[in-house]
């Protein structure tokens, strides 16, 4: 057991999977000698060589499209998109190809690919190095969408993603890369893709979050507890397909739901969670289903007062939870 950072957990997962299965390879911009701009692949090029850790041309469409081709052949590519903000050129390959391949060929062809992308703001990246893109993909049957909130899950989920026979989008909260630390066991383990996790039980309201926002939600719950409000925190982890059961059970216990994400509000991922609760959890509700999310602007603006204004943080969660608890 050792305490490591989120990014180190991710690096370890790739290292171990490269060692385990020779069909696994890494492809992306600057993943080779540079070790990735966030250093998530550092040392892997030296250890596994240029055939297993491939510096791609600067072209995301082909990173994914070529990855899909290799996956069709039986390889297990792990594609890195340098920032989630740059994934759009690959949308056609992800949504029309990877996601639909199994269904459209009635299971004849499958695409076991992992697409990793750092997401989220709070790091001074402005409109184009801060985006959260889960809402674009959590609407696409055939994909799995995973967002870890801590090193243990990050490592276990990424290893599971590499072994998953389906295309998996793996979004990593880049602000947490070095900020979030946690214990990771020495031996081999995976964390199943699918189940959400009640990371802190409570009775007064449920807070649903993931990634960086889950980190803040736990901090908020701590603060709320000191005020006598017991918030249950649920880490969604696998956003798609989502674990509706855990969500609804939590609402049954607490009667109140606060869905938190950093992406902008309207049409964001939280809408689906709120809609699910408003339908299947309706009779358990003691209050409106609340969402706390980024404002409806085109991105996280650069100047730091703007950024602080945009970002959801522990303080804002406390405030929203406090109001909801008092409803």
């Amino acid at each position, binding site marked *: 057991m050792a305490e490591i950072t989120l990014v180190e957990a991710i690096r370890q997962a790739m290292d171990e999977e490269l060692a385990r299965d020779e069909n696994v390879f890494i492809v992306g911009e600057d993943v080779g000698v540079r070790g990735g701009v966030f250093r998530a692949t550092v040392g892997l090029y030296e250890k596994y060589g240029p055939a297993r850790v491939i510096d791609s041309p600067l072209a995301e469409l082909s990173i994914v499209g070529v990855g899909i*081709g290799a996956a069709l052949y039986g390889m297990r590519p792990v594609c890195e998109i340098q920032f989630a903000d740059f994934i759009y050129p690959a949308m056609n390959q992800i949504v029309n*190809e990877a996601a639909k391949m199994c269904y459209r060929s009635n299971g*004849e062809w499958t695409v076991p690919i992992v697409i990793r992308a750092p997401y989220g703001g709070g790091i001074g990246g402005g409109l184009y190095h801060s985006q959260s893109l889960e809402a674009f993909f959590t609407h696409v049957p*055939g994909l799995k969408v995973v967002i870890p909130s801590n090193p243990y899950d990050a490592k276990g989920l990424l290893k599971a993603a590499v072994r998953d026979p389906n295309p998996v989008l793996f979004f990593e909260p880049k602000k947490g890369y070095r900020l979030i630390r946690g214990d990771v066991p020495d031996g081999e383990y995976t964390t199943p893709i699918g189940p959400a996790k009640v990371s802190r039980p409570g009775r007064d309201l449920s807070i649903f979050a993931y990634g960086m926002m889950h980190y803040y939600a736990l901090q908020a719950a701590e603060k709320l507890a000191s005020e006598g409000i017991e918030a249950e925190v649920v880490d969604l982890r696998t956003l798609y397909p989502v674990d509706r059961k855990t969500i609804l059970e939590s609402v049954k216990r607490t009667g109140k739901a606060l869905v938190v994400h950093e992406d902008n509000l309207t049409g964001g991922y939280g809408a689906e969670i709120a809609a699910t609760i408003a339908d299947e959890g309706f009779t358990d509700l003691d209050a409106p289903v609340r969402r706390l999310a980024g404002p409806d602007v085109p991105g996280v603006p650069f100047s730091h007062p703007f950024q602080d204004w945009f970002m959801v943080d522990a303080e804002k969660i406390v405030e929203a939870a406090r109001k909801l608890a008092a409803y």
Partner: protein
Amino acid sequence: MVELSAATKKDMFWNMLLARRLDERAWALHRQGRIAFHISGIGHEAAQVGSAYALQRGRDWVTPYYRDLALMLCLGYTPRDFVLSLMGKREETTSGGRQMPSHWSLRKANVVSHSAPVATQTPHAAGIGLAIKLKKEDKVVLTTIGEGATSQGEWYEAVNWAAIHKLPVVFLVQNNKYAISVTPDKQMAVKSVADKACGLGLDGRAVDGTNVFAVYEVMHEVVENARRGGGPSLIEAVLYRITPHSSDDDDRSYRSREEVEEHKKQDPLLIARAILEQEGLLTSKEVEEMESRAKEIINEAVSYAEAADYPSVEEGAYPVYVEEARRG
């Protein structure tokens, strides 16, 4: 090049003929209201059959496009498979009735499932080529496309990958002079699609796409070159789309009947037949036999498919994920 045996040459002709008659039947079925949609490969047979025979069929890989009926027949796809697909029947082999007709998939022949958005199959070919290279195997990938679709950035990125990594991929462009209604001068500023190769750093050549043996010769060379590690090639097969774009199209709005009639003189089937007859390899009688064999096979396929069941709706919910696949 490897000299083709008489039997092989006749076989090539037979596949062209079978594809043509099957394609014509699809048009007939459409006129009769027995199917809803057909997209045709008439005029493309030489390019496709010549290419297919340049492959180690069943061993090499293919990421095709929708006009490749003749190619598919060479690779083991059957007329029955095709008519099942036209009719969206349950037994349909590429997708169990999920995809439109002519959206091929044939795992046993390493033909990858493709979609309708043009050019998406091209990066897959590069990726398969990369995998072959990483595994140090001596296989080749053929990927096909229309000339219009080479305008997609997707195509450029894929060819670029193959050129950089010297991947064993052959990019065959079937230039039939139209992308629905749009002519090549509105797609590109180069005179020939083959010219695109020089900007990407790979070998590029144009070939008469109406002559099956000419196509075979060039394709055989570049396929074997790729197999030996010589890297990718871009081959433009110059031909003409004799039919409307698809059964939904009315080509009279954008081209004259005279133009079409003029090009019918360059019918790849007639050209192949003339060559074989001139070489003394084919008699009219043999052609007649082939014609009736084709008719028989196609009739059987139509009756079979028409009698076959539609899928039951519950099946439509699967397999979204591999875990739900019945046959994977």
